[in-house]
């Protein structure tokens, strides 16, 4: 992965350098000046793409953050602070961070729409405030001083391009890091992200803070570009238009951010030359955004898809074992997971009624029972996704009550879901790293090979559902957690694959050291994988013991098949 990050970053840097050189040497001064704005807007778009495109939270006040950065830059210019524009705009960006966090905080634990409302509210409030306090030096027409080395318009273009390049390259690294994967995971499913030990508030807040910082820098750059600023530069309408363009162009891609910047800057220029009113642009942006939202594909994604068609088709490569699997992790012996008198009620319905269950270290315990017996509720309770339950759950003898889902995952309880919840934008390797935390390249490769998964550079979106179920299990195993809860891992998997999966699951304790609680309807898989079985019906444990004996018990067969064995009993 490190290779891939460097390659992507180098590609970005190199293409920007070539593009910059072409613009700098070939275009007349007027166009260079105009295109400078493209890159400034591009930075603002990238900041929006980080929150909205990557993390899935709607932000409608991005230009207000830019306004904070610009205001601070203007103020530092006015008082003649040392360091010049480069330092001022960094301070401006930093000044926008607490504002971003303050706005992000109230929406942290709520759904994304609330953030849209609070950001729109902030944009409106910022408009009134800015109209009242005005920009520093606005009334005296004090120009923001550009850095001496980049004072001319062409020089300033280089300064902006350099800033854009640094931000784009850093973002390239961040987006391929575990943090970047966490953002995508949060956008796709917050619960699944928490089950992988990701702190949802931290992921959201970091996205918001970094985004505000970048946006603040774009504001500082704009201050140097225009010299003097007015509040209209950062009005709510600008934020809304930026949102529309980001949605249409796909601002979380480097390509989309540039394309969006070109639309915002060059479109009005085009309309002006055609003697058309410039606000037509906003109408087209709105329509474009609606179109992108309805197809679910941004302009950047469309281009990349078309470009991929031109390239020779890549075959999905299976992972090849580079080395041997690392040593199995040694966890404390004894009872790894214990459930004592667990009772869960949904209103008047009792989903689980004084359930007791033990998963000894080094074993695979099966949990079976008809639909609605309370199996998934048990997994939710153990993993910390239930708001309240009675009874207690112990990991290696320590009670977990009051511990959040994220913390339980970090302590060592991993779970999978009945339907796969892996963000399709990730690559196989990125997902395993997200689930596992720090893991070295050869361990990753050999783990994937052990499960028969595709190679780490394979995009999840090209992988079929059966394989994604395997990746779910592989991710949980890669974390080396003492306890792994598998919720119907074979659902949607073909019979042959299910048998293979059964063998793999049976081998998890001795290969990796984790104990497994396996929920499954496929009895062949259960027989193959489990050392003990517990049977649920209507929220109660009706049988427990060795697989063969338990599955032959009349009460179990009745629960599953509805067969009466009264005659046999008589």
């Amino acid at each position, binding site marked *: 992965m490190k290779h891939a990050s460097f390659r992507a970053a180098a590609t970005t840097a190199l293409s920007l350098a070539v593009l910059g050189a072409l613009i700098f040497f070939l275009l007349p001064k007027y166009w260079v000046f105009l295109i400078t704005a493209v890159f400034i807007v591009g930075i603002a778009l990238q900041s929006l793409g980080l929150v909205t495109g990557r993390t899935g939270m709607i932000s409608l006040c991005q230009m207000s953050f830019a306004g904070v950065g610009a205001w601070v830059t203007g103020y530092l210019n006015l008082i003649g602070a040392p360091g010049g524009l480069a330092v001022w705009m960094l301070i401006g960006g930093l000044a926008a961070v607490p504002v971003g966090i303050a706005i992000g905080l109230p929406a942290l634990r709520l759904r994304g729409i609330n953030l849209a409302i609070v950001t729109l509210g902030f944009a409106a409030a910022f408009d009134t405030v800015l109209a009242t306090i005005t920009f520093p030096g606005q009334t005296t027409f004090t120009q923001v001083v550009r850095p001496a080395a980049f004072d001319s318009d062409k020089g300033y273009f280089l300064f902006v391009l350099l800033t854009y390049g640094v931000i784009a390259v850093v973002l390239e690294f961040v987006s391929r890091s575990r943090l970047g994967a966490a953002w995508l995971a949060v956008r796709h499913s917050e619960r699944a992200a928490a089950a992988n030990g990701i702190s949802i508030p931290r992921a959201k807040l970091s996205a918001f803070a970094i985004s505000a910082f970048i946006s603040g820098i774009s504001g500082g750059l704009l201050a140097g570009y225009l010299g003097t600023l007015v509040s209209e530069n950062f009005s709510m309408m600008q934020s809304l*238009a930026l*949102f529309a363009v980001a949605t249409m162009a796909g601002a979380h891609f480097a390509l989309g951010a540039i394309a969006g910047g070109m639309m915002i800057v060059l479109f009005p220029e085009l309309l002006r030359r055609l003697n058309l009113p410039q606000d037509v642009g906003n109408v087209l942006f709105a329509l474009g955004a609606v179109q992108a939202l309805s197809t679910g594909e941004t302009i950047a994604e469309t281009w990349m898809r078309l470009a991929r068609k031109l390239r020779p088709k890549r075959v999905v490569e299976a992972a090849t074992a580079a080395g041997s699997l690392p040593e199995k992790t040694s966890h404390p012996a004894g009872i790894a997971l214990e459930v004592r008198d667990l009772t869960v009620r949904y209103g008047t319905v009792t989903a689980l009624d004084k359930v007791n269950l033990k998963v000894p270290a080094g074993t695979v315990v099966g949990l079976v029972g008809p639909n609605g017996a309370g199996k998934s509720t048990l997994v939710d309770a153990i993993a910390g*996704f239930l708001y309240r339950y009675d009874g207690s759950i112990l990991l290696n003898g320590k009670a977990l009550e009051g511990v959040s889902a994220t913390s339980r995952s970090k302590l060592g309880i991993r779970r999978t879901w009945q339907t796969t919840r892996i963000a399709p934008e990730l690559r196989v390797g990125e997902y395993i790293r997200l689930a596992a935390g720090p893991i070295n390249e050869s361990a990753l490769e050999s783990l994937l090979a052990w499960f028969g998964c595709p190679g780490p550079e394979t995009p999840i979106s090209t992988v079929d559902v059966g394989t994604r179920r395997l990746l779910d299990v592989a991710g949980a195993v890669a974390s080396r957690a003492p306890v792994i809860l598998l919720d119907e891992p074979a659902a949607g998997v073909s019979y042959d694959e299910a048998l293979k999966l059964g063998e793999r699951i049976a081998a998890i304790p001795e290969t990796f050291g984790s104990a497994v609680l396996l929920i499954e309807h496929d009895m062949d898989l259960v027989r193959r994988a489990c050392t003990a079985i517990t049977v649920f019906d209507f929220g109660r444990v009706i049988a427990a013991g060795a697989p063969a004996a338990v599955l032959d018990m009349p009460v179990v067969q009745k629960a599953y098949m509805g067969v009466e064995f009264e005659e046999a009993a008589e």
Partner: protein
Amino acid sequence: MDSLFTAAVAGLSAGGAYAILGVCAIFTYRLVAVVNFTGAAIGAAGTFAMVALFELGMPLLLAVLFGVAAGALAGLAIGLVMTTWFAGSNASTKAAVTAALLVGIIAVGLRLTGGQHPHYFPEIIPGSAFRLAGVEVTWAAVTTLVLSVAFTLLTEQFLARTRTGLQLRALSQRPMAAELIGIRVRLLALGVWAVTGGVTAFALMIIAPLRSPDFASLSLLVVPALAAALIGAFSSFRAALIGGVMIGLLEGSVSAIGPVSQYRGAVPFLVILAVLLWSQRGARWDEAR
């Protein structure tokens, strides 16, 4: 103190309008599952249609009726977009669509109404109703308040007691299931959009003369509207009603306090912040996450 009271009462008519807008926002959210950022813009379209007709010499009453109809039509248009392309989308995508549409609507609206070009906004309900502790209470305030209360109660009763109301509730819970048992889902959804459009248009007509009356400012009244809806947690009409009126009163009071009077536009934002911080206490894992 006296001047504060006067100012608070002056905020009453705005508060009534916010309440209506807030109730409309909840109505849209509960029944067609859209957090609608274009709500006030739809109303602004109706309001400016009324002004244009009035400027052309149409009698006020008739112009108001046509304006309300124009608001309903504008709502219907947004509803068509939402039901045609986004019926199956998640709440976040739908909200993004309305936020994007807001940009376009404001651009078109500003163009058609001549930007900041001043229009004459007739006072639909002029005059003072009565004096309360020495403060004039206008008919506009009384009307928006009465209207907001009536609209809230009517909506509640309609949803709770009528057959269409029952169908609408079914629609809001599971559109697909509602469709399978033979409810005309799309028609009902469009009806919701049209009704909220018309009502919003009328509410904005009453308070437009009190505002900086350009298309963009009226459209951005969606902020206090959503703040009111948040107070009602996007489910309680009554809480939104009270919340909307409170925001109006608060804005009025703030504008009377010298040093902060210019910042009264920030009031809805602060209310949103406070409400969200408060409502986070009980946040827990739900199906949508």
